[in-house]
């Protein structure tokens, strides 16, 4: 029962964001960047519903992929915005464990109030994001390289400081009940509260991209950053803000993981680097920027999570999941290219013909 009430908002919320006031025509549906990812999601869901049996479609099954999707989704959304603006952020993979370790060391090892730990962890994400953004705009080094560098630098710092401060690479954390309920607990015994945080991030990012002028700025920056700057967009400020938001979101997930599992490890989070990119690309965002949607990113995240978790409900060896994700990624990009071409060649005549 609970699964239904929970599953609905996460799937429907973005759809509400996307639907324009007018009734969509066939042409306008085809034009939407998330069309390819919707087809992918339906295909994957159907596949695992058939081969995964009843347990996959049960509340427990839904919880397993929604939990994965929520953590990935919170990171994938700001990473997707960055990608639409023409940048990449690989450093999320080490900001996440760094933030986990920060809250565990501050509030677990040094027994500071949990609020201090939370603020320290989130602050760390913002700082790393700020440094990323500043390096990208000042040095003009591609963000791939800059964030690859900070990925390693932050991982090294995390490991180094953890060993110096606590003598260990794993720290226990006992958090206050309120913090635990809000940030790292299960609802109904199965669903992580991060699912609700994910919905919140979807709404915020959806608003930014579709309904605020900043969304236009982000699209323009990804399309052509020089023209965007000439049009009066403060591209430097937007770039830094975007990197800070992806740092913040990665730190948020790291923090909530530490609270959820009551401990933090130095080596968590590396999987998020590529998983977030895969989710965003499956969601129809153009890797080189300038094109993409929030609905697409959400669909891509769900697709990735269903493949990742759904495999356990089938009789297949779990190792095949990576193969499926690889093939899926390629198919998704091909399909998204096709739909983008259709969007570019779409003419009003199609609309009248369809009537």
């Amino acid at each position, binding site marked *: 029962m609970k699964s239904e009430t929970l599953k609905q908002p996460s799937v429907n919320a973005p759809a509400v964001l996307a639907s*324009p*006031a007018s009734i969509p025509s066939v042409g*306008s549906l085809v*034009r939407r960047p998330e069309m390819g990812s919707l087809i992918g999601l339906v295909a994957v869901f159907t596949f695992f519903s058939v081969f995964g049996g009843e347990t996959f479609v049960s509340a427990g099954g839904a919880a397993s992929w929604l939990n994965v999707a929520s953590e990935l989704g919170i990171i994938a959304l700001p990473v997707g915005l960055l990608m639409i603006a023409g940048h990449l952020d690989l450093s999320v993979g080490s900001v996440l464990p760094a933030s986990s370790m920060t809250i565990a060391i501050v509030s677990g090892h040094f027994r500071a109030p949990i609020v201090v730990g939370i603020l320290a962890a989130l602050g760390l994400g913002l700082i790393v994001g700020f440094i990323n953004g500043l390096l990208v705009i000042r040095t003009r080094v591609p963000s791939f390289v800059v964030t690859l560098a900070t990925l390693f630098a932050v991982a090294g710092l995390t490991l180094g400081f953890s060993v110096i401060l606590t003598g260990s690479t794993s720290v226990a954390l006992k958090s206050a009940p309120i913090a635990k309920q809000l940030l790292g607990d299960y609802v109904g015994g199965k669903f992580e509260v991060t699912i609700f945080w994910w919905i919140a991030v979807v709404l915020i990012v959806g*608003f930014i991209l*579709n*309904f*605020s*002028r900043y*969304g*236009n*700025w982000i*699209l*323009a920056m990804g*399309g*052509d950053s020089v*023209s*965007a*700057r*000439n*049009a*009066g*967009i403060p591209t430097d400020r937007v770039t830094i803000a975007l990197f800070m938001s992806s740092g913040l979101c990665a730190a948020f997930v790291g923090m909530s993981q530490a609270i959820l599992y009551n401990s933090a490890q130095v080596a968590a989070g590396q999987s998020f680097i590529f998983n977030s990119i895969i989710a965003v690309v499956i969601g129809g965002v*153009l890797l080189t920027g*300038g*094109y993409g949607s929030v609905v697409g990113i959400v669909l891509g995240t769900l697709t990735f999570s269903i493949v990742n978790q759904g495999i356990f409900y089938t009789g297949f060896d779990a190792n095949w999941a990576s193969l499926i994700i690889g093939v899926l990624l390629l198919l998704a990009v091909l399909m998204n290219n096709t739909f*983008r071409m259709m*969007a*570019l*060649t*779409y*003419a*009003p005549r199609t609309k009248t013909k369809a009537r």
Partner: protein
Amino acid sequence: MTSPLLKLTGINKSFGPIDVLHDISLEVNRGEVLCLLGDNGAGKSTLIKILSGVHKPASGTMEMDGKGVAFDSPRAASDHGIATVHQFGGTFPLMSIGRSFFVGAEPTRRCGPLNVYDRKRANEIAVEEMRQLGITRIDDGDRLVGSLSGGERQALAIARAVYFGASVLILDEPTAALGVKEAAHVLRIVLQARQKGIAVIFITHNVVHALTVGNHFAVLIRGSKAADFRKGEKSREEITDLMAGGEQMAELEAEVESYVESHRGHPPPLVG
């Protein structure tokens, strides 16, 4: 007579040891089309970049309405009403018409505590402005810019410049990539802009196009102004000859080369 809208006097520009522009003086009046003709590498694009604030001239002055101006950035140039439209028009092929029309100047409306991008109004204005330039095929501002034809993109970019109050419109080879019909349409739009009292600087290779819309012509050769004349003062053959140079060009090249060697990179002063 009133002072010209935009006046350049003795503009020089060099990149390192290479003189790109040498003592360029030009005037553009309201409601006139100045055609800037010249071969590749003649310095046309450098001149545009100076006008649109991308580069600063090494020496020389720019005046608008009789007042001296200097542009530190493209933003400063557009604040003075100078708009540049490049060869392929819209530079955001994957953005919607409405969104790219208003990039950096999005209309917003209040929605509770939030300022919301007014997509409907943006689309309506963009479509209407394009319609005024004779593009009637487009009725949906949500279409992507990339789905427009080359001429329609030029129209969109010109409509945008006109809407945001450009007084000087720089068109960088707007017809170069277009078919005959589309080019004719763009030329008609240029005439429309001229009628609105906008000063148009029209950069082109195509002498026929230039003669169709231009009031005033300047030919650039190797960074120097080789000719400056009004409509009717020279025939098409003469202009083509001037641009391409023929034998003259080869001679000139040899001459300039030898001169450059002996004068540390400065081309010869203009004669005649």
